[in-house]
Structure formats: structure tokens, C-alpha cells
């Protein structure tokens, strides 16, 4: 425990608990170091995170990482939170002074749980979608029709190209396999 910020987030962690009636809950665990973590999120209709809480049984660094992350995501869209969860170095390690290198996996675990929660949220929105067109990317509200059109018009062949064209897959990436399916279907017709 070297930095004041780490100390603060460890000895007085923020957001400890479970969101009652959460829009998403996910867990992460490490078989090697034995740490476990649960993150729960409440999300409003505009896909903004209104609440984030965590519970953990893991080392002080995991607690500090989780405290910081849950504090940061409040007010972000799920897409923004997903990006945070994909880059533990930027989101956690570099936020603290003197985060030990042998604790990078703790930051990664906290990010993994957060990202997992956002993916669960995206999955549930996709499933419950009642619009005319199938929803593929929840984070950026991109429909199947839009993606198909982009692929046909510009002759796209990869997910990365689709993302550049219409943002689908730029958030939590839970729609990657769906985009892959669409690419296959459309391109095999040619």
C-alpha cells in the first residue's frame, strides 16, 4: 500500500454492496490467486449508468481497483463503461501512483467484471428489443438492417471495418459474433 489514493480506495472503498434490482450483475474470479468479485449496475433508459456497486473477496488492490472503477462509471453510458473495462492499464493502473506491476492482474480482474456486467446488460436489451428491426449493437443502437446496408454498399469484409463504418461493436463487443454472422451471410451472397 504505497500511495495515498490506493490507501483511500482500500481502507474507505466506495460503492460496496449490491444494487437492488440491478439492470446487470456479473462476476469475475481468478483461479490462480483465488480472488472473486461481483459488480452490479443500474442503468436508465438512455443507457446511462445510474449506480454501480461491488462486492469482493480479494486483495487490497482488487478492492481499490473496484472502488475506483465503480465510482468512475457512474453517469457514463454503458458503451463508455465498456471501453473503460477493456483497458485496465489506462483505467486503473495509471490512475494510481505506484501501482505494483505484480498486481496488474487485480486491475484486469476488476475491469473484466465491469465489462462482463455491461455485456450482460447489452445481451438483455437485445433480447427484449421489440422494435421493427433486429437490434445488434446495444451500446450504439445499431440495427441489423444498418449493418447489412453498410456491408453491401462499401464491400466490408471485417468486424473492424463495420465498426468504423457505423460504430457497431465499438462498445462492449458482445455483438461481435452477430456481426460476424451478418458478414458471412451478406458476403456469401455475392
Amino acid at each position: 500500500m504505497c500511495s495515498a489514493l490506493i490507501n483511500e480506495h482500500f481502507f474507505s472503498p466506495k460503492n460496496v454492496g449490491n444494487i437492488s434490482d440491478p439492470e446487470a450483475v456479473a462476476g469475475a474470479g481468478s483461479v490462480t490467486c483465488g480472488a472473486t468479485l461481483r459488480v452490479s449496475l443500474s442503468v436508465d433508459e438512455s443507457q446511462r449508468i445510474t449506480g454501480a456497486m461491488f462486492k469482493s473477496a480479494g486483495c487490497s488492490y482488487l478492492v481499490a481497483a473496484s472502488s475506483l472503477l465503480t465510482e468512475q462509471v457512474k453517469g457514463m453510458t454503458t458503451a463508455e463503461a465498456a471501453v473503460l473495462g477493456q483497458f485496465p492499464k489506462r483505467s486503473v493502473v495509471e490512475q494510481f501512483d505506484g501501482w505494483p506491476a505484480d498486481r496488474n492482474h487485480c486491475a484486469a480482474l476488476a475491469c473484466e467484471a465491469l465489462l462482463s456486467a455491461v455485456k450482460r446488460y447489452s445481451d438483455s436489451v437485445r433480447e427484449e428489443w421489440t422494435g421493427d428491426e433486429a437490434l445488434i449493437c446495444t451500446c450504439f443502437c445499431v440495427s441489423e438492417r444498418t449493418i447489412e446496408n453498410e456491408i453491401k454498399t462499401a464491400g466490408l469484409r471485417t468486424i473492424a471495418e463495420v465498426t468504423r463504418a457505423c460504430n457497431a461493436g465499438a462498445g462492449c463487443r458482445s455483438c461481435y459474433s452477430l456481426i460476424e454472422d451478418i458478414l458471412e451471410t451478406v458476403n456469401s451472397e455475392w
Partner: protein
Amino acid sequence: MIYLDNNATTRVAPEVIAAMQPYLTEFYGNPSSAHSLGREMKSAVERAREQVTELLGAADVSEIVFTSCGSESDNWAIRGVLEHNPEKKHIITTFVEHEAVRNLCARLELQGYEVTWLEVDGKGELDLESLRAALRPDTALVSVMLANNETGVLFPIGEIGRIVRSNSNALFHVDGVQAVGKVPIDLSQLEVDLFALSGHKLHAPQGVGALYIKTGVELAPFIIGGGQESGRRGGTSAVPNIVALGAACELVGSPEGHELVRHLRDQLEDEILSHIPNASLNGTPDRTKRLPNTSNISFEYVEGENILAHLNEAGISVSTGSACHSSTRESSPTLRAMNVPYTAAQGSIRFSLGRYNSEQDIEQTLRVLPGIIEKLVKMSPYDKELRALYAAHG
């Protein structure tokens, strides 16, 4: 500072420092030298040897050889026996030995030796039948510790020695590092061939240990040098350290201070186990089979490094068996060998008391610990399990 980590190392006793001091300031000279300076150093070493002999109950001073540490003593004992008996390729040891024995035997396994690893039960005790059954004509050595460093469980080395003696020609090595100074030892009455001890566990500084070699036992030398220690262990005698070890042996050999340690440990353990619902003892509840200073307690469903950090913040030093905290990211091998559930092993704390602990130390620990555990229980994702546990506790 409340120091409850005496099994890790101990504070150097003022009496020991006083004994050592002249040999850091006034007296110097190589104990092997022929001039009077050297001879004075030599007699200091021999005086210390007598003190160690006395504490261990060895039959003769010639049975004590000074080393640099417990790990050296263990390594020498095992390697020395193997080298001296090249036709014997079988070793018997346990899953709960200290790394100095365990990791060495694992390495020897890779080098072609056959190792039988004895298991322990849920209370940390050995099954002596499986030891008897494992003995073979080609068993070079049996190595079993006297006291486990994590749980404090004591192995019946008297009985084990008898079993080894009557069923084989193997030698019996005991890692006594954690036990010396905590429980009485009388090696002249035991069928123990080799016995390791370490100074820094009994209020001498780090950097000195000893190996007891029963008269008649032969083993190859480990450190070959200038004929020191009757040609058995090379290297200029570390006189100040050796003097320290001798003084420490004399200190802990006196009955004073031991009863208080036992009483404080019992009090701490009883209070924690009765008042904190998710607390459970690791190691046999039979206190005659455990060191009087050690209490290894699991706080299930919370994590040990967290507990340690909070106690540290409160000025209390302990150890944990949690994987998060170990450099190898492995949870305590002893607790794993005892089949302690993962969620409990992760939350294990070892309290190991010593002669400098007081009633106030224990009172203060008991004052802050419940609050720490409560805070971490609220943080635990095992909320369902904890609710059930707390409900049952009443």
C-alpha cells in the same frame, strides 16, 4: 507495535545483544587462529555449543554443528545423507514440511530420487501406518518436522523415530526450527539422527543455525572449506552470531515467560472462535498437540491479505495463508494438504505469539479484530453463505 508474527521471526533479545556485543566491538580474530585473540573466540564458540547442547538435550557437545540457518541445516542433512548412501534412492517426507525440505525433495524427485509424500488429515495430523508401510530397504532418510510453522501442529517424533528404527535402516531427520524454544526437547531420549534449528526463531539474529548429528551418524559435508567445526562444515565461524545463538538458547531454556505466552494464545484463540461467527481453527483443537504460541484461524469468505492490511494499519503484525499474499500466488500448502476449503484457506490468519507479548497486546487485538472482520464480511460476494453462517451462529 503489536507483534504477533513470531513464527516468521523474533525480536533479538536484549540479553542476546548484550552477549553478542563484545564480539562485535572488543573481541575479534579468527577462532581458528593460534594466538590468544583467536583462542578467546574459539572458547566463545565452544561455550555457545554447550548452551545449544543443553537446550536440545543432546548427549554430547560434539553432536552440535553451527550453520548459517535452518535451511542450510535441512539441506545439509538431506543431501549429506543421500550423498553418503548412494545406493539408497528413496526418501519419505510430508506434504506440510517447510519449503527448505519440501522444495528440496521436489527438486530431488526431478533428479531421479523417489519421494513418498505423507499426507495429513483435516486436523493436520499424520497417519503413522502409512509411514510404516512406506519404509523400504532402500529408504535413505525420513524427514518429518517437529512443529508445523503455519498451524503449530506437533508431530510425534518420539513414536516416528521408533517406527523408523524398528522397521528400516533409514536415518531420521527432524526439522525442529519452529519448535526449539517453544516446547521442551530431549534429543538424547529420542531416536532422532539429525535435527535442524534456526537462531532467529528464538530471539537470536538471522544468519545462524545448527544441525544436531547423533553420535555415529555419518553424512557427507555440504560446505567444504578450512576444516572448521571439526571438518564437518567449512566457513569461518560467525562468532558474534554463534555467541548470540548460545545466549538465546540459554534464555529460552529457562521456564520463565512460557506460561504467559500459552495463556495469552489460549485467550486470543478462545475469544476469536467464540465471538466471530465465520472463524474456525486450522489444526487440531487438542492443544497438547500444538505449539503453545500459535493460532491459525480462518475467517471464511473474506480474504486474508485484506485482514492483514487492516491489522497492520492498526499496528498489529500477523501472517496470512492467502494466495493473494504469497509471492508464488499459491495458497498455503499446509492448509491445502489439510483439505481446508478454498474459501477458508483464503481467509486464514496466523497469530504467533512470543515472550514480549502482553495482556494489553491481546486485549487490543480483540478490540479491533471483530470490526475488521465485520467490515470485510459486508464486502464479501459470498453474502448468501455468510448470512446462513451468521444465522446459525445465533
